[in-house]
């Protein structure tokens, strides 16, 4: 029973590597992005094979789905640009190829010489699970043991939206294509379902694969659907709410981390009795922030009081 699965793994690995090459070599840019999405889904599949369903979910939803959407909308904007501006000299390509082959060889060598039996932190995590306030180890690591990392990750997201709003200030985006009635009908059907799924993922994260990031990403899809179908158009007046949404997760996370300190406790040291509640609170707020931020990253520019000629169609 093991052997065929190993064969499957090997084929999957080869396919992933081949897709990676294809992403870089295919001429058409649209095909490039589609291939990348396939690549991402295949990688997610591989991670399921490696018993990492949380990671696979996150990669599929964020790393592939939303990233793909971002890439496609960017391609839509820059479609006028020539595909390959300047050809790179062949010598440079060959030299880099050699370099990367060398790096691959070196890293593969080091990897093969390393036994994959290091105990890691799994025993420590297992030992402290009871005190963590949640039942799912990955969530425990993300929101308790290494909560500081996760806070900073949300900060990265905040930095990204600040930077994107700053970069694209005062720009008028190329109008997106109108998607028509069938799409609108579909989105009316899909929206509530996605909200349910996102919330479910958030809620289940405490016990099983899922959590704030996966849930947030799914909820962000709501935003994408709304934006694409023009069911929601960002207005300048909405900016304060958007900003509040962006900072909500970071602020609550950081606030809780600091407020639990005192009385002999350290920052991030949730009182055992309230750990679960606090973590759920944080996760909920972070999910909202992630959803709003990812949707805003997709939309790009800050809604501004510039005359937008969107009424024309």
């Amino acid at each position: 029973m093991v052997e065929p699965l190993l064969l499957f793994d090997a084929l999957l690995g080869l396919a992933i590597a081949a897709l990676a090459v294809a992403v870089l070599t295919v001429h058409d840019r649209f095909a490039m992005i589609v291939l990348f999405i396939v690549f991402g889904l295949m990688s997610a599949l591989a991670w399921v094979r490696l018993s990492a369903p949380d990671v696979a979910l996150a990669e599929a939803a964020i790393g592939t789905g939303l990233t793909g959407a971002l890439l496609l909308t960017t391609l839509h904007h820059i479609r006028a640009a020539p595909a390959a501006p300047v050809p790179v000299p062949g010598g440079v390509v060959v030299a880099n190829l050699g370099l990367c082959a060398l790096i691959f060889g070196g890293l593969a060598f080091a990897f093969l010489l390393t036994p994959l039996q290091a105990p890691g932190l799994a025993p420590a995590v297992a030992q402290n699970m009871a005190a963590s306030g949640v039942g799912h180890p990955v969530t425990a690591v993300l929101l308790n043991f290494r909560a500081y990392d996760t806070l900073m990750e949300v900060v990265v997201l905040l930095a990204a939206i600040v930077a994107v709003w700053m970069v694209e200030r005062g720009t008028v985006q190329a109008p997106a294509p109108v998607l028509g009635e069938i799409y609108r009908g579909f989105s009316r059907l899909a929206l509530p379902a996605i909200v349910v799924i996102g919330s479910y993922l958030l809620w289940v994260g405490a016990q099983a694969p899922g959590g704030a990031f996966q849930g947030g990403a799914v909820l962000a899809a709501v935003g994408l659907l709304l934006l694409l179908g023009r069911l929601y158009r960002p207005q300048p007046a909405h900016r304060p709410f958007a900003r509040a949404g962006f900072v909500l997760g970071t602020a609550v996370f950081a606030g809780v981390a600091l407020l639990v300190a005192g009385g002999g406790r350290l920052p991030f040291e949730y009182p055992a009795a309230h750990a679960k509640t606090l973590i759920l609170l944080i996760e909920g707020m972070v999910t909202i922030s992630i959803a709003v931020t990812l949707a805003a990253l997709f939309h790009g520019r800050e809604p501004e009081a510039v005359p937008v000629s969107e009424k024309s169609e």
Partner: protein
Amino acid sequence: MTSGLIFGLTGIAVFAIGLFGALVMVEPLRRVLALKLCSVGAGFLLVVGAWREPPEAPDPVPHALVITGIVVMISATAVALALIRRLHMLERDTDD
């Protein structure tokens, strides 16, 4: 031969392919994708580091790290894409 070994090598290969792309590609979107390939490659390595032969449960810590890495990467990608869009706009305006 184990799944860990296979996907470890896959990850390293993807990383190297991405690195090559990042060094050689000139087209903006493709460079971003090349970097994304690198991050997936690094993700593979961490997930493999967490993996244990099936009856044994995997190490959750690297999983958390990779999830963090994925979110960080989409943030960076979004900023890079915004820059690409902005640059395209500025160059188009000056070309006219």
